[in-house]
């Protein structure tokens, strides 16, 4: 007896594969924006499935802030080698050295916003006409308005009030020279869907997502990892905790949570019982109510 419907994970997978194939068919020079986080790893995994038995036809592009977890860089290099893919790196340090951007000052200075310039420079320099991202609509209120194919003008800017309507499965990627698109194949996935799928497919992810012992300090309601970039306040003290990370960004802004989840099964169970959103531990989103929208308008991921 055959069943003629897909379960929801299969349907999400099929939708993402469809979008990735549309990117390949409609653009000349697409890349996958690869951060080393679970969402971009998922997109890469889906791209592998979409073009099997061919290799992934896209290079991976990493915007390197210089404030990385060493584990992320190791994971990136291993994955690129396994896939036989090309890696393009845009360096924030170079943007700083070239005077394109200046380091933020003050106590909570980060390189988060600086990435925008490096990203747009790398897109222009490599003549990229579509950057595929792991953004999800459930992450943040500005992202809830994103299209699968999202247009960026020749300044790399997003105009959320003037987006192309997207009907049925018809994706319009037409653009003029100098403009580019962002494509979001996992728009319709939630954090829980991502974990359930990673578990189902047994996708390899950086060790940072699993519970591990680490030196951390308590800051802005979460455990910030000790690194060469961390400047300790007088009142702060370094502690050793068993933690894991729910999202991965720069080592300077990514807070961990105390956890014993050291297998994918345990992580999925833990995420299902979470009472806080995953970006709650990201200080980049805490700056204002429209922090994400403001950055996205300028060309952020």
């Amino acid at each position: 007896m055959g069943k003629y419907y897909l379960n929801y994970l299969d349907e999400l997978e099929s939708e993402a594969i469809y979008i990735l194939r549309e990117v390949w068919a409609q653009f000349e020079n697409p890349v996958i924006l690869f951060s080393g986080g679970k969402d971009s790893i998922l997109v890469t995994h889906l791209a592998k499935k979409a073009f099997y038995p061919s290799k992934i036809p896209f290079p991976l592009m990493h915007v390197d802030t210089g404030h990385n977890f060493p584990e992320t860089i190791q994971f990136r290099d291993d994955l690129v080698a396994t896939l036989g893919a090309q890696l393009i790196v845009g360096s924030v340090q170079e943007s700083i050295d070239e005077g394109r951007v200046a380091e933020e000052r003050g106590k909570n200075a980060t390189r988060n916003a600086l990435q925008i310039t490096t990203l747009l420079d790398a897109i222009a320099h490599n003549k990229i006409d579509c950057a595929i991202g792991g953004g999800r609509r459930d992450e943040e209120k500005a992202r809830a308005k994103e299209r699968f194919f999202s247009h960026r003008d020749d300044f790399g800017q997003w105009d959320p009030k003037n987006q192309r309507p997207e009907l049925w499965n018809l994706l319009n990627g037409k653009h003029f020279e100098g403009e580019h698109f962002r494509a979001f194949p996992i728009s319709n996935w939630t954090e829980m869907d991502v974990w359930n799928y990673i578990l189902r497919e047994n996708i390899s992810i950086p060790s940072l997502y699993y519970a591990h012992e680490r030196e951390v300090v308590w800051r802005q309601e979460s455990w910030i990892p000790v690194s060469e970039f961390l400047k300790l306040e007088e009142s702060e003290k370094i502690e050793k905790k068993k933690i894991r990370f729910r999202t991965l960004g720069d080592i300077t802004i990514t807070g961990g949570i105390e956890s014993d989840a050291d297998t994918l099964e345990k992580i999925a169970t833990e995420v299902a019982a979470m009472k806080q959103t995953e970006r709650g531990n990201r200080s980049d989103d805490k700056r204002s109510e429209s922090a994400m929208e403001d950055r996205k308008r300028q060309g952020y991921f």
Partner: protein
Amino acid sequence: MKLDTNQLLRFTTAGSVDDGKSTLIGRLLYDSKSIFEDQLAAVTTTSKRKGHEGVDLALFTDGLKDEREQGITIDVAYRYFTTPKRKFIIADTPGHIQYTRNMVTGASTANAALILVDARHGVIEQTKRHAFIASLLQIPHIIVCVNKMDLVDFSEKVYEDIVTQFEGFSSKLYVKDIQFLPISALLGDNVVNRSENMDWYKGAPLLYTLETLHISSDLNKIDARFPVQTVLRPQSEDFLDYRGYAGRIASGIFRPGDEVTVLPSGFTSTIKTIDTSDGEQEQAYAPMSVAMTLVDDIDISRGDMIVKKNNQPTPVQEFDAMLCWLHNATARPRTKYTIMHTSNEQKAMIKEVVYKIDINTYARNETNKDLDMNDIGRVTIRTTRPLMIDEYRDNRITGSFVLIDDATHETVAAGMIM
């Protein structure tokens, strides 16, 4: 949650701020425990700042800065929640007349439409508009929520009168499945939990209805259509002669051994394998993404369609369609546009606007036929080369298209083939 069998249901909500649409969505998210503590804390703070009593559920659906400032929805926003039975995607669309294009967008992929009616006002112009769009876009299931029952003393008569009114005008529309529910989004009656104030209502609450809607039959299983997106040619040692036609099944069921015709060339062959990276498949049906290999070496590329030999779409260069105009530049008949239909792209023009339709009264206007933004009309389209079409009523994928303005690259219209 059963990962292996749980389905995905996409639904759209139509209504304006005053209908309590945002409150209803907030209530669904809140009562199904899909709201996180930090989201709740943020909304509680904002509610207090605005001087509301308790938590203003509508704030959960706040979007862009301008929308928060103006208290309106400008663009389609997507929301997600999951219950032990299903995953849900809500396309939250604004209900004002100037946003018809957003409603059409949200409706294009929906399995179900929630239409909100304010119990105090009954069926109004806007209700008719929402019902018309739901029927035009062939949303398989319509659920009419008569909201704010708390403000009419939970009166059965008020509810029954509205049902009668709605049935009266909707008999003119082509709707497959329609249900009615008396609710109070504000108090939660019949949203997730059964109302204690309306004993007279014997049906299920909204969430249960959404969890159990029969959607497996919504997709066309009869007419096998496979638009080719791209061709996979690995040219690696293990797959030296592999030539896989990659795409997503639009409708119907394909199996290895099936006799197929490739359109528009008309060559016939037999399916050798249906592949995914998880292995060869015994069958493929909508909306699966697969790669097909054929027994014969045929020249096939993007824009071609593989169909069953004994069931083919009609190749046409001229056809009628209902067109929804999406752009602020008025439609220009007899001007060239690009038409996107499945994975096929051709040049096309609007040969003629047959009539424009008043979406509030359903009256046809054959005198003023200018299609402006948010207008809907029947048109005749002519293309430079044949398209492989089905009627939209039979097939939402091979029966739909968009028009793109070559000068701006903007998507200017959405069409449903008649």
